């Protein structure tokens, strides 16, 4: 067989793969869908003239997190009897992941975004979880006829979505019409990177090595961390990539071992072979007491202790924002209580409260608007929420919340438990931005 023939066969294999993935991503089929939405979206709940959609990865290791976010949005809508001011709404939950990948999928995000564009009575989208997916969706729905579809994310932490990040064209490239339609309640990564560095300094770490998964989120937070760590006087021994498809990382860590780090910082998501990454860290560098292991919120997932087993014991994982199970403000406490009661769960996942809050931000903007999308978009920004679920905060002119608290969790007996909250000073967070 000639090389050309082989090439065409491999191409064919690729095409078959794409087809199979597309087939696998097709969700359950049922009637009475909202016209224009793909079958990655659920049937609507509630009733009304308008539609609100959520967009999360509902398959793979992030499913438990995503399911709670969807339920939180539903809970808040139910409280309002599916009426926001004078607008009655239905709610659909859309999936941006595929079973085969077990995580968000760029093609699915694109398809979802294009179908949102075609639904004229869509008032807003709550989502996404992954910043990478938001990078795809935001610019597409920004160009929707009738004005950019309002989007509020409870979990996107990537800095460049709203502010200059160092990557050319950010954040303007996500808003091609020049009119912004995106806000978030999640704490941006520069706060988390700053808090991670600050936490290591608290623990008297001087030499740290950074590994990132080379995706926008991982690379971004790694860079935020490196800048903040340098500002704090820590020695960053290196910042290199890990290849998610590699079978193991022993050689990688042996290269790192020769630099004698006191701590390893993992910037990325656990579904990029994070379990093996943690196992090999322990097998080469020793347990997490000997060489401290700190990971960004992409590892704040029950898959981390499940995939890494005992090797995860004692590792620290940060997460932007406060631990929902420990909210102390009255609105927050009421939300947690209601959620536990409604869904018979004890433990709230990291972004559950934020999802409820995201819906409230969108609802607030809808309420203040004249009903047009452009008007809703305008009212996403410079708003105050003195009695929010996540506390008292403002959304600034670029769509970021003013709350910068970062929770540090530890893995203990297979569970992720909050240890402390770090509040990085704004100056350090700005330094992390570079």
């Amino acid at each position, binding site marked *: 067989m000639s090389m050309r023939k082989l090439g065409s066969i491999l191409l064919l294999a690729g095409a078959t793969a794409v087809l199979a993935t597309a087939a696998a991503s097709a969700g359950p089929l049922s009637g009475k869908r909202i016209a224009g939405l793909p079958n990655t979206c659920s049937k609507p709940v509630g009733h009304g003239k308008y539609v609100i959609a959520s967009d999360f990865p509902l398959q793979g290791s992030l499913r438990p997190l995503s399911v709670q976010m969807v339920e939180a949005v539903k809970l808040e809508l139910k409280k309002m009897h599916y009426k926001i001011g004078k607008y009655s709404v239905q709610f659909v939950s859309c999936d941006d992941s595929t079973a085969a990948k077990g995580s968000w999928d760029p093609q699915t995000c694109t398809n979802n975004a294009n179908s949102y564009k075609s639904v004229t009575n869509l008032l807003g989208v709550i989502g996404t979880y992954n910043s990478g997916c938001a990078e795809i969706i935001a610019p597409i729905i920004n160009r929707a006829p009738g004005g950019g579809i309002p989007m509020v994310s409870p979990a996107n932490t990537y800095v460049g979505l709203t502010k200059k990040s160092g990557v050319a064209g950010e954040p303007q490239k996500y808003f091609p019409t020049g009119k912004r339609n995106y806000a978030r309640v999640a704490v941006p990564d520069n706060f988390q990177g700053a808090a991670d560095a600050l936490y290591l300094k608290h623990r008297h770490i001087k030499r740290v090595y950074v590994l990132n998964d080379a995706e926008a989120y991982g690379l971004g937070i790694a860079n935020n961390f490196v800048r903040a760590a340098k500002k704090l006087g820590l020695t960053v021994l290196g910042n290199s990539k890990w290849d998610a498809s590699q079978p193991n990382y022993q050689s*990688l860590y042996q*290269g790192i071992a020769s630099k004698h780090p006191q701590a390893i910082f993992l910037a990325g998501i656990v579904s990029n072979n994070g379990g093996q990454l943690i196992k090999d860290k322990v097998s080469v560098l020793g347990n997490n007491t000997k060489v401290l292991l700190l990971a960004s919120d992409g590892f704040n997932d029950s898959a981390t202790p*499940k995939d890494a*087993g*005992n090797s995860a014991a004692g590792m620290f994982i940060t997460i932007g924002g406060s631990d929902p199970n420990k909210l102390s403000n009255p609105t927050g406490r009421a939300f947690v209580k209601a959620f536990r009661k409604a869904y018979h769960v004890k433990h709230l996942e990291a972004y559950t409260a934020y999802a409820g809050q995201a819906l409230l931000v969108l609802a607030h903007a809808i309420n203040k608007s004249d009903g047009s999308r452009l008007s809703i978009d305008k009212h996403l920004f410079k708003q105050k929420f003195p009695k929010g679920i996540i506390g008292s905060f403002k959304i600034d002119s670029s769509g970021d919340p003013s709350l910068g608290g970062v929770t540090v969790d530890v893995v203990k007996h297979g569970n992720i438990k909050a240890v402390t909250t770090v509040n990085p000073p704004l100056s350090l967070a700005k330094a992390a931005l570079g």
Partner: protein
Amino acid sequence: MGTSVGTAAETSRRPSFALVPRLRSRAVAVVGILLLALVAFWLVENAVHDIRQFALVSLNGITNGSIYALVAIGYTLVYGILELINFAHGDVFSWGAMITYSVAISWLGASGHSGIALFGILAVGLVCAALFCATLNMAVERVAYRRLRNAPRLAPLITAIGMSFVLSNLIAVVYGFNYVSSEPLLPRGALFTIGGQAYGWDKLIVLLITVPTLVSLMIVVKRTRWGKAMRATAQNRDAARLMGIDVDRAIAFAFGLGGALAGIGGFVYLVYFTQGRFDLGFRIGLFAFTAAVLGGIGNILGAALGGYLIGFIENYNSGLTWHAPGPSWTESLVFILLILILVFRPHGLLGESLSTRS
């Protein structure tokens, strides 16, 4: 070198993967030698830079390479006999890992044992994985390829791709899409240390399983009656029939052998790396197939050599510290090497030397 399944005597029937006719021009040879010299210089410089690091990373390369070698041989055996790239082979390997998980960890509870009991459980796991994958691979041949033996070459290839999806999706059906993971099974105590870094028992055990497996495979193919029947079938199917060889059985034998090796590979992967998933075989399969082509497809020793080569590339690239391109370049490097080999030695590393040897 009797380890070849096929023969270069039938070059007319056996196309090479050559991109271009063999280039003999001096300029090309010079470029090739310069490239080799560059790589050699890089390796030596790294070794001088930190010899202990270099030694450790080399040892990792051997460990990972053994697994690639086991899987690569399955590709080469089948290609040698049917001229078919059995794309499903990587997924047979995945099944080996998952069956090991089910048998050794879920049913027999390997994590809770040590010593002789653990050894026994792992031995059972190994045998089950090898038998299961041998049967699975033979079943794949029976169901998907046998009827297409006289069909145009493209037909079984497409079936092979289909079988690959079927097998990996079946894993997803049985085990789900997430990783199955276990605590370390093999003893990880230090056998010796290099510069404060341990070379664990687990790595030695991997070699103690894979190397004898590779050696016995070569003996089986070279010496046993069915090994000879298989090689005869690969070289001339008609003549083999006239020698009283049941060609269908000889082909099934090749699939069985390849499957058993993939099963052993899957076993080693699971007990050494302690995790597995439905798509495990994709990258390993791709690398192993590349290893088979590197070594000269149809040539068993070549496939093993190619496997080790890729193991080294992967580990040198991620573990060496002096001007290494870094792990995100591993795949690119492996395929660049593949292209170079195909340009300079169209029949692979050992394929060519085989046909000129007297």
